[in-house]
């Protein structure tokens, strides 16, 4: 601890010194904070992952800021990016100037929030109203330092298959579907009841698998696997247990199709009528489209997107940009992060990768609300508008250090067990045993 703190301070000092030197070197000219120039070239390294849609923006930034060169690395998946970040964080070296982090790791990031630059020094306060308020809350650490700027968010709506709904005699229009599930007051009880009707009418499953349903159920609670004070909150958490029982009841009634997460039989399950609804955060729409296309389906496969979600508004996933304290150019890095998260950039990112913006001005931009490839694929659903509406009322839930481990290793196997026919009680008890064995704090 001592060692690492020393190195951190040293690094911070070095960073500050470098910045001071830069500032001194350029203070003669413009008074605005633009230390880098063609006489004083600065290379900024950026690490992103998955499809964040930022790649097209770097060139423009370089053109607008002579002297700045951006070296971008994109890691294929969030999981690999997490390992990459953790390894470099642990080694205390090799981190980029701008590091993208995922909401799922936020608990771990916040545990070492000292090693991220306080963006308040670089004008975070001036732009904090850019984002939906809960996104800024998520990016603020326990000492009220803003350490990250939000890029996309994952407000959750419901994907449903119009053709299958029609077969079962359910409404097919997306506003009617939303109303039938309870509109703004949609509850899980109602969702499972409708599912049972669907099952009775068609004999088919209602949703793809229990894992994603469970994730959204947990995310909706005021407190999830952790209490806001950072202590574990699973054993004896009645709100959590009640939802588990609801989920187990659904699985026992055969509402789950028991598909493999992220696989869905290489997309076949989306086109062969295995299930009629699916949990859809904004970024999932692109995933669903990819799966359907991989299995030979297209816009005619019948999938649509409704402005409703059982249990109320919730968010799943989303990304931030941070500036690690090891950066030698924190001012330039912060400025780049500011640029990459402004409304214009976020609209561009949405158009490039379908990532739904966390910036309110971008959410209402015609480039987001208008028709695009994605909305055409989902039966001309106004995807942008629906997602903006789904992001209203989301509350940031505290994520503990091991939140993602609990989700994956404790409740991952438990939800699979539910889908394979284990009863709710023993699956819950197995989950508690796993939790105990893992000895998580």
């Amino acid at each position, binding site marked *: 601890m001592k060692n*690492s703190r020393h190195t951190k301070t040293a690094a911070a000092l070095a960073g500050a010194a470098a910045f001071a030197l830069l500032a001194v070197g350029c203070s003669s000219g413009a008074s605005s904070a633009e230390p880098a120039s063609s006489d004083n070239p600065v290379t900024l390294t950026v690490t992103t992952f998955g499809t964040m849609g930022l790649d097209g923006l770097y060139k423009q930034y370089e053109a607008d800021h002579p002297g700045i060169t951006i070296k971008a690395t994109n890691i294929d998946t969030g999981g690999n990016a997490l390992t990459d970040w953790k390894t470099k964080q*642990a080694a205390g070296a090799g981190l980029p100037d701008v590091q993208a982090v995922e909401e799922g790791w936020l608990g771990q990031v916040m545990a070492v929030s000292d090693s991220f630059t306080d963006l308040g020094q670089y004008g975070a306060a001036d732009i904090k109203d850019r984002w939906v308020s809960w996104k800024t809350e998520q990016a603020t650490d326990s000492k009220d330092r803003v350490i990250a700027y939000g890029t996309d968010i994952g407000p959750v709506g419901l994907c449903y298959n119009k053709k299958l709904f029609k077969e079962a005699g359910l409404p097919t229009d997306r506003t009617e579907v939303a109303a039938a599930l309870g509109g703004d007051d949609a509850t899980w009880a109602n969702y499972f009841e409708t599912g049972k009707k669907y099952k009775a009418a068609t004999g088919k499953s209602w949703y793809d698998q229990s894992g994603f349903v469970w994730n959204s159920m947990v995310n909706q609670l005021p407190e999830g696997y952790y209490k806001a004070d950072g202590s574990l909150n699973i054993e004896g958490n009645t709100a959590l247990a009640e939802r588990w029982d609801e989920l187990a009841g659904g699985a026992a009634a055969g509402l789950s199709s028991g598909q493999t997460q992220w696989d869905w*039989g290489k997309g*076949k399950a989306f086109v062969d009528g295995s299930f009629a609804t699916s949990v859809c955060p904004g970024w999932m729409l692109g995933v669903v489209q990819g799966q359907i296309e991989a299995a030979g389906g297209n816009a005619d496969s019948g999938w649509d997107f409704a402005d409703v979600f059982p249990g109320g508004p919730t968010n799943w996933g989303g990304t931030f940009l941070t500036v690690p304290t090891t950066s030698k150019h924190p001012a330039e890095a912060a400025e780049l992060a500011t640029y990459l998260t402004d409304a214009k950039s976020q609209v561009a990112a949405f158009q490039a990768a379908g990532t739904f913006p966390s910036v309110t001005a971008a959410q209402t931009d015609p480039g987001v609300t208008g028709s695009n490839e994605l909305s055409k694929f989902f039966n001309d659903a106004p995807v942008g508008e629906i997602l903006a509406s789904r992001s209203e009322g989301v509350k940031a839930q505290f994520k503990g250090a091991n939140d993602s481990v609990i989700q994956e290793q404790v409740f991952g*196997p438990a939800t699979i067990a539910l889908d394979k026919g284990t009863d709710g009680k023993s699956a819950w008890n197995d989950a508690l045993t796993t939790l105990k*064995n893992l000895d998580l704090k």
Partner: protein
Amino acid sequence: MTSIISPPSAPQQKHGRPDAESTGAPSSGNSPRPSLRAKFGALDVKVSPYLYIAPFFILFALVGLFPLVYTFIVSINDWDLLSGAGDWVGLENYVTELTDPYFWNSLFNTFSIFLLSAIPQLIAATFIAAILDQNLRAKTFWRMSILLPYVVTPVAVTLIFSSAFDEKYGLINNILQLLNLDPVAWKSEVFPSHIAIASMVNWRWTGYNALILLAAMQAVPRELHESAALDGAGAFRRFFSITLPGIRPSMIFVIITATVGGLQIFTEPKLFNPSSSTLGGPNREYQTTVLYLWDLAFNRGDFGKASAVAWLLFLIIILVGLLNFLISRSIASSGGGRGEKIGRAARRSARKNAQLLAREAAQENLKEHRS
């Protein structure tokens, strides 16, 4: 090693000292020519050998010894991956790991996969080598062909096998269903998953081991085979009594490397089912010890415990390696005690044969001489 190096340098040292004493002065100015050269020569003899071997030991100290020691230091601390070293906890991490059911589960999986891969692999490699040792046409072609799987990167192998072993859409289950057999849960049941992973390991390593054994077989003297054949020993008898004892050192090498590799297996189980949320199967069906270690360090962030597991695994590998060394020594020296006797008997009879032949030849000679 030192015993070989020191003797030549010792006499020279003695030689140099009286020289310096006789002059009575510390300065070497009195007799500069011989002493400078002698000193340099002495230094050369004394130091050079160490310099020659130094690169290995320096590298080993940097990339082998240092991590080993550092890992041990980490393992006796409560060390979080991200926030760094915490309190000194002594051997507590070791104690917790030794009582952790997942640690034992990972050990069981590791050994199960190791046995399922190492044993068939070595048997197959030995027989393939024996076949390649025959007079085949296009020798080099066959020899290079069996090495081909080794050249392919394990990640690619795993991806191909992983898709073939897919439970719902995989090639193997499709074939099973064509034959009206039940599909096997390759990725969610303990034993089938172990077989699947062992098959990847075998695919990769059998050819490599076969080549090493083949090289060893070619070094076994042909005369032994010939004389045994003269004595009427069949191909199998010759294989067990002459070839196997003959390739003993290589066999030991192959077994030890297979042990070390087998107990450190990582890539195959890691990539076998990448969509699984828990590493090594939903309920850790094929989570090997290295995978468990990785999970501890990089998912759960407990660097201290992960290091303790690394050390435990290190000790286990040494133990198993020693055990294998002992077993393979006794097996290969005899094929179970019997082989060696037969080997000796064969050699003895070969010797007798030769003597007989020589005697006969001598008698023939004598006869010729007389006539």
